[in-house]
């Protein structure tokens, strides 16, 4: 028997952006219901005890882009947001290593071992990118305008942005243009010469993207990773105590505090649309809930091609959404360890295990990994971004044991012959073998291994094709084009149906930003 209850707003999907939108709406006094398909909240920002005693940030694993005003406005520190510094990036090489830390002198010395020129350039690079981050900040904080039929307010905010761009220095403008168009490799070649340094830095240009460091457009993805700041310092990565799921839980606690209702294990089957207007949702179990508006935190493919009927949407829009690029390019391998990895190039324990460990010895390493994927295979020697959360937060693993999180690229969603159990294990083996090249003891200390292919990420977390950003962060699908022209301001062709996931402006990562801006947009037009 269908239950009926009236809400002001229903949020489909309890990911961090859906929860953020819910919290803002509830804070504004709206009666809000969040419906999450899984037993646990957070979407891709989730912590799960995959093996007894071993907790993993199963998908998304670091935080740098969380918006400071969201933290404050939703009082997230009070509800459990605790970001621990991830202070270094360690790139193991076959006979040497590169490390960059939070300390400028140490970083200078370490880079200068390889290239004095690079060490000096590196000191200029950070501030330069920080200034670019400041320069683009107003774009990120603006609700994207309708570029085809702009409203008056669209015109005025576009003018504001243009005025802002007039204030940029010619140097800022030059960098910005380059970052928008170049490959990360080409961009970094203008600055640096030591290949492992360039390769490690270029890696942030390929994360979550089906591109190599030499693909044009990858420089923008790199910039996207520079736009976050923690406590005022740009490009500071953090690890949430208890895993990234605790970020989601902090937002959920805030939403509940403001009065939002949150239901887990409540999969939504369809958004109910009547006369071109969203009026509620139907759950898979047949329950129905009515509301004035419905907000989808899902990716654009699910939001428009699954939750509603194509017939309710304009056909050109459907085409845009079908063309929206959301190719899965990465996998995740989570290891439960009996001890710490021992790197041949820098044996023993030390600070290098407290930050990111980047398996990116050269451009060629990354490009070859990409080549495998281009032709429908997972990388035999993948690029990896590894962290050891238990070193920062001992509660992630039993005393003396450790957890290791490996973000692995490339693992194409469309793998030749499709993903299956053998391929998954072979992929896991390729990951372990690649780590073993630099830390041979890894094979002896693995207690458990969780391998997530893009297909697993799709089926478990509902990310189409396993794409971590709800769609690639390439120029043709950013800002006023994300996810489609005319519908980049969180509204949709269906009245009272809104979107607030990473597939909307300003895109992926644990930012809270799409959720916040969608809620502010909705509250702005709510009659």
């Amino acid at each position, binding site marked *: 028997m269908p239950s009926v209850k009236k809400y002001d707003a229903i949020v489909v999907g309890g990911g961090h952006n859906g929860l953020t939108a819910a919290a803002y709406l509830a804070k504004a006094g709206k009666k809000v219901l969040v419906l999450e398909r899984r037993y646990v909240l957070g979407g891709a920002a989730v912590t799960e005890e995959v093996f007894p005693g071993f907790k993993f940030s199963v998908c998304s694993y670091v935080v740098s882009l969380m918006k*400071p005003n969201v*933290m404050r406005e939703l009082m997230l520190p009070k509800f459990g947001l605790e970001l621990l*510094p991830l202070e270094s990036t360690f790139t193991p090489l076959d006979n040497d290593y590169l490390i960059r830390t939070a300390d400028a002198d*140490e970083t200078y010395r370490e880079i200068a071992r390889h290239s004095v020129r690079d060490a000096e350039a590196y000191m200029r690079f950070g501030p330069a990118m920080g200034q670019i981050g400041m320069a683009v900040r107003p774009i990120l904080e603006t609700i994207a305008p309708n570029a085809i039929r702009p409203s008056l307010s669209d015109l005025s905010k576009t003018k504001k942005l243009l005025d802002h761009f007039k204030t940029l220095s010619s140097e800022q403008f030059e960098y910005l243009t380059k970052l928008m168009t170049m490959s990360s490799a080409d961009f970094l070649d203008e600055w640096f010469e030591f290949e492992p340094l360039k390769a490690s830095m270029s890696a942030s240009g390929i994360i979550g993207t089906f591109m190599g460091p030499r693909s044009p457009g990858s420089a923008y993805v790199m910039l996207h990773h520079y736009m976050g700041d923690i406590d*005022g310092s*740009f490009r500071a990565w953090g690890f949430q105590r208890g895993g990234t799921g605790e970020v989601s839980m902090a937002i959920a606690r805030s939403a509940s505090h403001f009065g939002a209702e949150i239901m887990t294990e409540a999969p939504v089957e369809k958004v109910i649309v009547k006369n071109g207007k969203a009026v509620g949702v139907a759950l898979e179990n047949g329950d129905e809930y009515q509301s004035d508006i419905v907000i989808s935190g899902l990716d654009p493919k699910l939001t428009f091609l699954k939750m509603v009927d194509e017939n309710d949407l304009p056909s050109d829009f459907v085409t845009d959404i079908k063309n929206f690029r959301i190719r899965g390019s990465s996998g995740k391998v989570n290891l439960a360890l009996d001890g710490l990895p021992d790197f041949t190039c*820098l044996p023993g324990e030390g600070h290098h295990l407290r930050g990111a460990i980047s398996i990116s010895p050269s451009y060629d390493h990354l490009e070859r990994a990409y080549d495998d994927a281009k032709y429908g295979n997972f990388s035999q020697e993948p690029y990896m971004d590894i962290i050891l959360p238990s070193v920062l937060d*001992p509660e992630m693993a039993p005393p*003396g044991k450790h957890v290791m999180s490996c973000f692995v690229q490339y693992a194409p969603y469309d793998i030749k012959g499709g993903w299956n159990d053998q391929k998954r294990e072979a992929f896991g083996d390729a990951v372990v073998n690649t780590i073993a090249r630099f830390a041979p003891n890894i094979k002896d200390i693995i207690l458990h291994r969780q391998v997530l292919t893009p297909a697993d990420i799709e089926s478990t977390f509902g990310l189409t094709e396993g794409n971590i950003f709800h769609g690639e962060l390439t120029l043709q699908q950013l800002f006023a084009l994300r996810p489609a022209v005319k519908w980049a301001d969180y509204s949709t062709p269906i009245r009272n149906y809104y979107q607030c996931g990473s597939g909307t402006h300003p895109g992926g990562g644990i930012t809270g930003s799409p959720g916040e801006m969608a809620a502010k947009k909705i509250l702005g037009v709510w009659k």
Partner: protein
Amino acid sequence: MSYKNEFTGITQLRLSPFFERTSKLNEPQEWKRWGGYLAATSYELHHDNEYFAIRTKAALLDISPLKKYIIEGPDAQKFLDRLVTRNIKICKVGQVMYTPWCDEDGKVIDDGTVQRLSENKFRITSAEPNLDWIQHNAAGMDLTITDDSYTTAALALQGPNSRDILNAVASDSLDSLKFFWMMDTTFDDIPVSISRTGYTGDLGYEIWMDPKDALSVWDLLLEKGKSFGITPTGLNALDISRIEAGLILLDVDYVSSRHAIIESRKSSPFEVGLGWAVKMKKKDFIGKKALEAELARGPEWNFVGIEIQWHELEQHYRKAGLAPGLPCTAWRTSTPLYKGSEQVGYATSGAWSPILKRYIALAHVKSEYASEGSELMFELKVEHFRKLTPAKVVKTPFFDPERKRSCPV
């Protein structure tokens, strides 16, 4: 990374019983002076990790420079009850009390803890040497006063995992030890006292021991604490956490009335936020009359927490084309607070709180502007130019986790 540039040096300052270990671990070799000792500023090149050890793991701090005095004898309780503002008569054996003590004018001399070690034996800790003041006031009393500063070494173990570590090291469980109580136990065969006290506002303990056992205790804690994330921690991290906890520091947030030179530098307990620790119902204590009079006319100053408002702070920096310039260490520069064009107070220490994501400070504010929610203007320098930016009076402690006081059931 693994540069081990060893060196030896000479210092005129005192070395703590833990120095043999701490000096090897101090990577920046940065030291501060604390009570005539060398005390580590931070052990790593940056104090971030040490700060988060206090809040998320366990931080190990050498607090041996604290001044310590043993008061023993039939009149010990009577004497201390007269010396300090708290009610020592109700302090049970094994209990600890935090308290200020005043001169006859009711102005604070120092603050510290009083531990009741047995019926007639107490230990009092202080920031500055106080032996002279203590002896001076003990005339005619049946007791002995011993300077314990160099005969007891002390460590603070602070942070959410501190209890787990002590349970792994000590021969007795710490589970039922309550906030501001202490117990005797052993680490292997080494006798130690553990008080559930600290200067961080978190779950934490202070461990008191014979200096000859200092290195063994240090080693045991580091060994057993490793899997709980024990982290040697210096004063930079401590300073941020004590501000978050709203705890005052002598010579920073107030001046001892014994060194004040001028009257206006002196503060009553009410003026440094310690009114709660003044027990006016007590028959007599040093400074009571003056404090009675002050209460009757109302204290002129109040000591409060303020929060510098983010939005306007960010705007100031944005106008200069910069990201918000937040202090990465605690500051101790007296900073004016205004109401309109009138200066109505000054902040004495402040910090960006990494855990609260708030810019906080401790401040002396004229009583009429000191109520919670009161809006003041805080002086800020952005690119060498002075700006005023809003700050609000808020409750302290800024950070007050439940674990600070709770016990496992």
